[in-house]
């Protein structure tokens, strides 16, 4: 019966397939953990500003307040355009 051999074929394909998908992604979990550890060693967290927008209205004491308002508005506008 060709159907029954096809069934056994697909059963083995299922076992091998699921096994491969799982072991592939399991290995990837380990590798990603290793990668994050390495990245932490090379460039410790906190040094690298991932979410940069914290510096906009800081240096406000000496500089002209109006100038800062204009610059931060322009930055905000530029950012929102780039997000689109």
């Amino acid at each position: 019966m060709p159907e029954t051999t096809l069934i056994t074929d697909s059963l083995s394909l299922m076992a091998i397939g699921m096994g491969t998908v799982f072991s592939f992604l399991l290995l990837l979990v380990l590798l990603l953990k290793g990668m994050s550890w390495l990245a932490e060693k090379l460039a410790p967290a906190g040094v690298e500003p991932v979410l940069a927008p914290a510096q906009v209205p800081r240096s406000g004491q000496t500089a002209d307040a109006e100038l800062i308002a204009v610059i931060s508005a322009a930055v905000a506008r530029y950012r929102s355009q780039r997000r689109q």
Partner: protein
Amino acid sequence: MAELLTLWQSTGVANFAWGQLLMIAVGCGLVYLAIAKKFEPLLLLPIGFGCVLSNIPVAGIGGPDGLLGMVYSVGVETGIFPLLIFMGVGALTDFGALIARPSTLLLGAAAQFGIFATLLGAVALNFVPGFNFTLQDASAIAIIGGADGPTAIFLASRLAPDLLGAIAVAAYSYMALVPIIQPPIMRALTTKKEREVVMQQLRPVSRLERILFPFVVLALCALLLPSAAPLIGMLMFGNLLRESGVVERLSRAAQNEIINIVTIMLGLAIGSKLSADKFLALETLGILVLGALAFSIGTATGVLMGKIMYRATGGKVNPLIGAAGVSAVPMAARVVNRVGLDANPHNFLLMHAMGPNVAGVIGSAVAAGVLLALAGS
């Protein structure tokens, strides 16, 4: 008089066959679903219109010398279009949630069980008279369970070009049906307490990690499963364009212009494969049923894996996010978020569900690679 007869014989009215009329109706039905019901309109609209165009008699638009026929042989038969779309998907996808919590990859793996269970189902359908799926056909149908359009088209164009039209239509229709198919399964398999779990906030991910990520995935793929390298390679290339931060123009092109142009061409070309003799067959019905089955099983195994992780972590993981493992980015993650909000109005799971969601994309590409390596020969 003879001229009049010749003219008559070149009109559409004289040449229409019943099958073509029916397929034009099917094409209009797909366009209707796209416009009125907003079912994946980006693809179903071009597919539906391509179907209408290619079933116009005499014109031969979908034939080997017609416009759509040529587009098909250049872009779909070669596998180029789905791969270019994958590049765009890579450029659009933020893998940050996955990098911050790699263990969610297991959810993406579990949800791929839907693919392999459907493979068995397709082969079992051969016992019903009228069905005759080979292992290649069955593999191409099963990948619908990956809930990833480009992967399904890529695999079908390699393994079962005859079924491509039906498989693509089924894959995209079910992706549109994710918000209807998934929630009942998710609710049935989880308790209210599990659905209410609030997850810990994700840690920030550094730029270095984001840049290294594509290389790590690609290296693993190159070492273990080169047959998945076209899919994973383009996905990771697109992602590197995005994360490198130095080629913003290319990144924007990949996520806008290129993916849009290719989507138009791909949709029209697939529509041209919806001909009466191929689509109006019992097999199409079987493919539609199996596709729904694939989706449901994938959702269920994803949620079950989520429950295992819930137990293993002592209740830190909300099992609902497992349902997002069936890719269908970002629809599945949104569905998870909604079901989570139903259980607990202050619980936003969207970011947490993005991890398994993008893991599902990698998982189904890996599954496609396995099927290609084992059934393709």
